[in-house]
């Protein structure tokens, strides 16, 4: 689409955005002097594996007889496993991740889950994203509430948390502020701009309903965030080569924003396709390969920039899968799973806790020993340096990652 055509098409959309400038002025004036959200310079990147990644074939218990007995056709052979210690090792497609582990950049946490697990994708993802108990329904996400806290009484800046996507996940929605969804800075910027934008500086009515001011406030924040990120990210991009594919592209965008100095503390990225009920091996190999290569490139890129200790990448999936494989060379929905923490200046090379106990299952599923909210608490409190209790609603004992 050429620029002319774009402008023609967007003329109507921008009808609304054109009304922003005067509103924005008032809004920004109001925000002025309230200061900017503080940041300790640490950045968290969340990578969500949607669909329920099979954790047992990702971090393989390669010396466990039960594992091989329950998975006669899909188990990863011991000689293929990229060993982490004498119990577990990585899926063979994850060589770049193994290299990061050998460099001391990866922490593996086993048996992560929550009480009364839900095996529905949607519901379990909700639980992970909102950090709720499994019998409660929250309308805000944990990253969104982090944003609320970071911007409370300060300038309202959605770009402090960015989801690299076209739509915004529940994880990113706060009570008073939502994060910014942005697949790439230019795309969002062009959606909010047109040369028709002129100085319409009429007074904005003051006694309008709250809904109207909410819509215009959202619009104003979107426009100013889009402009801020776009202008910041104009610097030349990275030289590192990223693998083609969705995750590679998105992590590349994250890296560019980080290196351009965009003031964002949390990035959120997801990759889908892990719902491997049938013919799991080929599918999972492809996805884990994409994941490991993209993350490998990302960390290489940040190391080159000397930033590997300020950036922590966390990877999770909404649940793991059953220990026993099904009749279609696949696996069905399970519960506890592993979580990776990469970078962030953590102590080198380790598996944080015990490997899954396959002889002590709960309804045929792995028994969790770490509540995922303990990990969130640690990331919020120890890493990002904020009040975890305010964000998570109660105290969760952190995991000992430091």
């Amino acid at each position, binding site marked *: *689409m050429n620029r002319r055509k774009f402008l023609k*098409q*967007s*003329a*109507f*959309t921008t*009808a*609304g*955005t*054109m*009304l922003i400038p*005067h509103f924005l002025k008032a809004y920004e004036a109001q925000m002025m002097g309230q200061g900017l959200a503080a940041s300790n310079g640490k950045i968290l990147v969340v990578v969500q594996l*949607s*669909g*329920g990644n099979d954790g047992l074939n990702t971090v393989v218990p390669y010396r466990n007889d039960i594992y091989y007995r329950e998975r006669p056709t899909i188990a990863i052979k011991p000689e293929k496993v990229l060993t982490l210690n004498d119990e577990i090792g990585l899926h063979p497609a994850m060589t770049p991740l193994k290299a990061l582990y050998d460099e001391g950049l990866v922490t593996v946490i086993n048996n992560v889950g929550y009480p009364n697990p839900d095996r*529905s*994708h*949607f*519901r379990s*993802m*909700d639980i992970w994203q909102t950090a709720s108990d499994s019998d409660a*329904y929250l*309308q805000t996400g944990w990253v969104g509430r982090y944003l609320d806290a970071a911007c409370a009484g300060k300038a309202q800046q*959605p770009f402090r948390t960015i989801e690299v*996507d*076209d*739509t*915004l*996940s529940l994880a*990113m*929605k706060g009570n008073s502020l*939502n*994060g*910014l*969804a*942005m697949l790439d800075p230019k*795309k969002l910027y062009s*959606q909010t701009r047109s040369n028709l934008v002129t100085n*319409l500086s*009429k007074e904005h*009515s003051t006694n*309008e*309903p709250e*809904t*109207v001011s*909410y*819509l215009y406030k*959202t*619009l104003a*924040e*979107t426009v100013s*965030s889009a402009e801020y990120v776009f202008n910041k990210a104009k610097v030349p991009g990275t030289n590192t080569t990223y693998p083609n594919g969705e995750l590679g592209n998105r992590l590349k965008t994250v890296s560019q924003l980080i290196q351009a100095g965009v003031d964002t503390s949390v990035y959120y990225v*997801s990759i*889908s*396709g*892990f*719902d*491997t*009920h049938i013919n799991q091996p080929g599918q999972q190999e492809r996805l884990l390969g994409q994941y490991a290569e993209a993350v490998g490139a990302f960390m290489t890129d940040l190391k080159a920039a000397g930033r590997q200790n300020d950036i922590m990448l966390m990877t999770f999936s*909404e649940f793991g899968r059953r220990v026993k494989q099904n009749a279609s060379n696949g696996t069905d929905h399970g519960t506890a799973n592993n979580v990776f923490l990469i970078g962030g200046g953590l102590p080198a090379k380790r598996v944080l806790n015990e490997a899954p106990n396959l002889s002590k299952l709960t309804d045929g599923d792995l028994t969790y020993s770490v509540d995922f909210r303990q990990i969130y608490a640690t990331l919020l409190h120890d890493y990002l340096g904020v009040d975890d209790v305010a964000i998570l609603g109660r105290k969760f004992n952190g995991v000992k990652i430091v």
Partner: protein
Amino acid sequence: MNHQTKQQQLRYLFARAGFGATPAELNEASRSTLRKVVRQLVSNGKSVASLQVVEPDENRTKRQLKGMFRQGQLDKEMLREQIRANAQKVRDLNLQWLDRMVSGTDVLREKMALFWHGHFACRTMGRNPLFMQQYANTLREHALGNFRDLLMAASKEPAMLQFLNNQQNRKNAPNENFAREVMELFTLGRGNYSEFDIKEAARAFTGWQFTPEGEFVFRAQVHDDGEKKIFGKTGTFNGEDVIAMLLENPQTARFITAKIYRFFVNETEDKKRVDQLAEQFYKNGYDIAALMETIFMADWFYDAKNIGAHIKSPVELLVGLRHTLGVQFDQPQPQIFVQRTLGQLLFYPPNVAGWPGGKNWIDSSSLLFRMQLPNYVLKTAEVTVQPKEDGDVNTQLLARKGGTTFRTTVNWDDFEKEFTKTTDAGLPDALAAFLLPFPLRPDQRILIEKQTKTGQSRSEQIRMVTAALMSLPEYQLT
């Protein structure tokens, strides 16, 4: 203080009680009294035309299909095809219901049913079109009837029993999910029952099951017929008894009324009004139509503070746009795409608590998409947005992108002819009076006027101005 003209009141009424009115409908209604229009809305369509995408005897559940596969009646390819066909039928059900809402017939019933879909939220499980079809028709049938009947019928729907795991709720092995949600979300609300009540009620609901053909059955052999103590009363209660006890509690009327008020009147609850309405609802024996008539008839319903206070849900937005301009989509997928991108896909509520609504609909990307929607629908602008996959391999059919442009047919002729008497200069205000909850502000008017050029035909002007007005943030409100 009421400064609304009758035209404004009618516009607002149709936006709330339905999905907005066409100019012709509004003109027609303006010849009648407000009272008569409300009566008409409430009493419309005593008989309900069912949604139908599958014949009950031709439906095969996923489990049945897998059984047929094991017995060699289906090969692998056929099995996959059948499972896919089921998902497609759920999609067709979604679109069929959407078309009903768009049609404008019996519109309050459809609007109420949409409300009940969010209240008795049920997500399609096992991709069973028959169960979802029955569930939707039950909601539509009882939408304006009696809440007692609705509660019992919705609770006994196989789709609901399956969604809330009541098939696994058995004597000596209770599953509390169903009992908990019936109290927390369908009747009393949090804080009005104890954990002990839930435990005991779950025992009472044992045996509430369903057949693969979609029939509710009571299976006495898995029912716990022992004594239970619920809300301080002791007895050998069954599921029907628990439902009756819940209805006997005025808190149920309060909870439902408050939710209706937030959906139909204002997100911010007016406690005194809701108390009064709830009392009446309870005294009337849970007559839904009577409650709605009271609301739509009340002077306060038309108060300035309520006008524009409601943010349209994605389905309200899509249906409203289609209804107002007589829009038909040439292909099914774009309408699924819009619902999905904006976060309200019929038959796939996020969880049993339903869609949160209100400000939750709006974030940076959904607002930009909403403002761009008239462009996609009316101007076939290129769609560059892609909704996320939810990871479930079974909903991939719904995730697929509908192509880069929407192909639609718009009935501009009917819309335009209602404005033949309006002067060119008067067009922006006249159209805004139909499409927006508020009159145009001066800066908005200037902006809208810029959308037209001298020398444009009347018809072109109307189209340009309409599309521009629909792109304003205010179009998101009713």
